[in-house]
């Protein structure tokens, strides 16, 4: 076998192989066990410990369409978990691009719950159980301002309704009334909360970030600054699985569905890396 050829595979071949590796498990899906990592469990348990009578869950949706594949399932899973626990869920955003997608996620979960509700009491009502407060720039203003007054920063919600008139905001004054802020991010918004909100106001912070950002945040898990973390689509799949196991709340599990193609894609990359290295060493030995 001519191993040197392995060093000169046309990149288009690799693209086609990767496309096939993703498409086939999508069209013919199979389910893999996803397990759970400690940071995922940490986030799940922290939300599970929030007292619905006293505190709310805040989800900061700081992602743009580029990272939708990873961050959208996280956003949906977090809202699902909050509502499953009968927590008030407050959604904010620091990026104007993410607002319509945050709204889509909120409405998706509201529809999911309401389509399965057996009676009026089980239904989720926007403005009472969940709210999208929208966007106030620049990020430092709402991050610091919410330590004093949430409705002072967000005077109206995404739909233009006065926040002081919304039932969900009754009793939600500042970070003191927020059990956890989870920053769903394709960038560095968890660090903003860690720098500006946590030292001053002592609020608990968690992160749900793209896989690219995850390595930067492990140090904050170790130090205990982050209560938990979801890293990439894998983290989102673990979280969807945990919610399904404990609360049996329905709805599409997009990250779980993506684990088949993700695993096959990883296997392909591993094979290519090994082949490339074998080719390199064989070529070097021949040259010497």
């Amino acid at each position, binding site marked *: 076998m001519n191993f040197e050829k392995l060093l000169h595979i046309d990149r288009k*071949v690799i693209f086609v192989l990767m496309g096939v590796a993703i*498409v086939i498990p*999508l069209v013919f899906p199979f389910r893999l066990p996803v397990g759970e990592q400690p940071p995922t469990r940490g986030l799940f348990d922290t939300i599970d410990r929030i007292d619905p009578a006293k505190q709310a869950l805040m989800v900061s949706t700081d992602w743009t369409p580029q990272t939708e594949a*990873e961050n959208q399932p996280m956003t949906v899973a977090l809202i699902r978990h909050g509502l499953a626990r009968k927590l008030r869920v407050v959604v904010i955003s620091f990026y104007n691009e993410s607002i319509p997608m945050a709204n889509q996620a909120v409405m998706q979960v509201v529809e999911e719950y309401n389509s399965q509700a057996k009676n009026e009491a089980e239904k989720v009502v926007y403005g009472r159980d969940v709210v999208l407060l929208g966007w106030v720039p620049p990020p*430092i203003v709402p991050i610091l301002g919410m330590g004093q007054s949430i409705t002072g920063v967000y005077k109206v919600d995404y739909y233009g309704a006065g926040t002081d008139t919304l039932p969900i905001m009754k009793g939600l004054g500042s970070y003191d009334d927020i059990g956890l802020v989870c920053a769903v991010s394709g960038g560095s918004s968890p660090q903003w909360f860690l720098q500006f909100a946590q030292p001053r106001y002592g609020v608990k912070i968690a992160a749900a970030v793209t896989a690219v950002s*995850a390595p930067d945040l492990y140090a904050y898990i170790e130090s205990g600054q982050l209560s938990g973390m979801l890293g990439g689509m894998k983290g989102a799949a673990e979280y969807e699985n945990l919610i399904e196991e404990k609360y049996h709340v329905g709805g599409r599990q997009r990250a779980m569905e*993506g684990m088949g193609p993700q695993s096959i894609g990883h296997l392909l990359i591993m094979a290519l890396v090994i082949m490339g290295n074998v080719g390199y060493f064989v070529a070097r030995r021949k040259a010497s």
Partner: protein
Amino acid sequence: MRGNVRYLAWAGVVVALGILFYSTRSTISHDPWTWVGVFLTVAVFSFLYRENRIYRFAEHLVVGVANGYSISFTVHRVIVPYVIKPLSAGFKALAADGPSLKLLDPNSSANFIILVPLAIGLLYFARFIPKYAWLVRIPMAIFMGYYTGQTVPAAFTGVVFPQLKATLVTQASFGGDPWLGVWKVLVLVGVLTTLTYFFFSREHKGVLKWSAKTGIIYVMVGFGASFGFTVMARISLAIGRFYFLFRDWLGILH
């Protein structure tokens, strides 16, 4: 090699046609916006073959749409509620009740105090008038001063001190699970040896050499982990796009 590429390309086309044939049995989207999304997705994917005009068109379109969206969103969500409305209400209150100190209250829905930050912000546009271009330094100085004042202490209280504290190994580190203590020691060794590697004021000889060698192992493991996570992220993004094509457009997935 070229023959192999051609063979694989044809195999790809056959697979794609097979999937499309399969999809005709299900519902292909009738939403024109989905088709626009499909066109743009395929246009961007075409870059994988080579740079081309359709890809460039998609790229320019994204830049234009993103800017237009940002500007209109900012006008509707910032300029109107935080500038136009308070000023408009302020003028109405002035006409109805005459001047009052309440009109200078920043928390009031009708106030003129917004004119101060508005005037400072407008100075950013002074750069377009060469004679007064220096005025742009005023908002920039305020902006930089404010952010530096906020960020420097926050970096210490939010990052440096907690991270230093977490690096320390104490007796308590071994109090619960002994493995946690072992990890703590490994983290401490990693921090010290990596710092040694980046210590350039002395030649890496003797103890320093072995410490730096250990440090570079930590650095490489870090790079490997980052690369692995990056691969995972990129594959996830590709999955997202294929989902869109196969679920939202072709309706193959449910």
